[in-house]
């Protein structure tokens, strides 16, 4: 039982690091590219929430939409990679992925823009979202990450 749990911890830790890696790289790629904007992505939104997303692609708020998106991506990346506040990071990540999924949902009858594979209802955004749920429910920062120090300190205090 214990051995099995260790394995789960190791696997979830790897999952956390990989998702953090992915978010951070996406975020950094945007931060360092002043020409980047989510305008096209939002303006071409489809599905039931199309109007919500196209409304975001408005000149007056575009700057904030872009900045918040970049900040959120980097925040998720840092928390998951460093293993601190990882549950907050996971929730923010789930929020972002839910928006990405809903703005271009892989529903039958909708044209899939800029996708490299074939999807029906389920796509990689949705899978990554569920993977973040796992990260949320099985925090691993205390085993690998900055939370470890807090954990250790507590353990020492306990021992005293």
């Amino acid at each position, binding site marked *: 039982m214990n051995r099995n749990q260790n394995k789960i911890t190791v696997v979830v830790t790897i999952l956390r*690091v990989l998702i*953090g*890696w992915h978010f*951070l*790289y996406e*975020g*950094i*790629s945007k*931060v*360092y*590219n002043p020409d980047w904007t989510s*305008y*096209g992505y939002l*303006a*071409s939104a489809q599905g039931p929430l199309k109007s919500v997303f196209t409304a975001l692609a408005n000149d007056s708020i575009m700057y904030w939409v872009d900045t918040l998106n970049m900040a959120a991506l980097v925040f998720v*990346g*840092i928390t998951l*990679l*460093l*293993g601190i506040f990882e549950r907050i990071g996971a929730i923010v990540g789930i929020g972002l992925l839910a928006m990405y999924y809903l703005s271009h949902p892989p529903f039958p009858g909708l044209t899939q823009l800029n996708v490299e594979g074939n999807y029906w209802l389920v796509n990689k955004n949705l899978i990554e979202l569920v993977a973040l749920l796992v990260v949320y429910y099985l925090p691993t920062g205390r*085993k*690998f*990450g*900055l939370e*470890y*120090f807090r954990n*250790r*300190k507590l353990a*020492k205090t306990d021992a005293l």
Partner: protein
Amino acid sequence: MKWTRRDLLKGLGGLPILGAVWWAGAASIVGKRRERTEILQQLNITPSLPQAVPGISGDPIRVGIIGFGIRGEQLCRSLGFATKEWIADMELATRENPDNKGLEDFMNQEKLNVKLAGVCDIFDVKAERALNSFSTSDNTIKRYRTYQEMIHSGDIDAVVIATPDHWHAPMAIEALENNIHVYVEKPMTHTIEETYRLREAAQQSKAVFSVGHQHRQTLSFRTAKDIVDKGTLGHVSLIQTNTNRNDDNGAWNYEIDENANETTIDWEQFLGTAPKIPFNKNHFFRWRKWWAYGSGLSGDLLTHDYDRLNCVLNMGIPDSVMASGGVYTHNDGRNVPDVLQVNMEFPNFSTGSSQLRGKEMGMTFCYSATLGNGFSRPTILMGHDATMELGNRLTIWPDGGSTRYREMLENEKMYPGTPIYQYDPGANSPDAISSATSQYFADKGLMWTYINGKRVDSTFLHMREWLSAIKNDGTVSCGIKEGFEEAISAHMAGLSWKLGRRIEWDPELEIIKPIEGIDLDAVLLSNEMVNTDFIMVS
């Protein structure tokens, strides 16, 4: 408290990963941007800004419309006057598709200082349509039965001519001789002889003369000129332009009005100098299909492509033209070809060379058209150093064998398949365009241009330029010189197709080289299809 190495690894293990990912992301993006900047600096292309025109102040210019058909109505909208019928149609279209911005664009269009003072149309339904929509209690619009009446009325300062081709020159000449300003649709003329008379009239007149090649206002074309002038493409040896349409409207089979008959149409006046034939609705509404009134692909659509390129390259009249084609897709009694290939030769023209002096000189302009297929073929300028696609968007690809970019290609800073420059002023303007024909014009940059990301009707800009020139004694971008070059080039293409032989231009004498025993104008006007030694001057 003592930290072991194991503790540090477990606590801080994420830190080097974070650093690595951050560095990799930043380095990759910054590196790409640096390469891009290097290329752009080398190209040094400056996207054009809209041209500022002096205001049209003072008393409004009194404009008369001659010909209130499909194009006449469009031109009126560019002047700020839309018919009630059009507004109703557009309201319906907007309700069906909220992305349709036609009406919104029209409502937001800047108001020009003009007064619509008269309309001349020989079909009662069209003339009444104009009066019904535009004539108000404070501005009554007069209907003139003939263009002469309008020109000599003393109530008109400027005329807009949107009639069948065979009426363009007679009307424009009459107006210019009376110092009435003229905006005439393309092609500027219908015969060679009247092209010279119109040039003479425009040069002698105090009035401002403008040809309706509205794409001269398209910003991407101005940018394209800068690109070519800076030698970005190297020596351009071949230009490929095309017409691809596959619908009734595109093949000039316009709707025949149910109220058309001999009492509602002044048939004699329609015919003018054309061969006298009995009343024929088909000829009246679909005049573009017969040489007697129109000029088919060479006058109607080649002129657009020719002038688009002449505005970018200023290459002038070709030394020679050869054309071929036939009536292959719409065998419905028309005598203008519906499939046409035109090769124009410019042996002494060059856009500049990056190679040994004298190695490169000369260019072919190739126009290829069919009315039986709608596959969109782009306009391409093929240079030794790069290829440019020309439309509302501009894209430039370096050529694998380029001399100018050899080093950058070798250092893998450029790749032949990857554009080195893209200009897309309308990238942020998603839009819904419905008809195939309007899409055809829009892709070519013939319908609108983009200023600060906003879509602007290029015909509006073109007319504003003309009106501004009238008020401020200014110049127009498509005046008599450009119109003369367009008309002669189109006539050479028409002649070559009809005669099945090479037609040559004498730049010294400024004439189409005569062919013994053949009256070129008679050939041009002839409704005969045969293209072997016909119409011998007796």
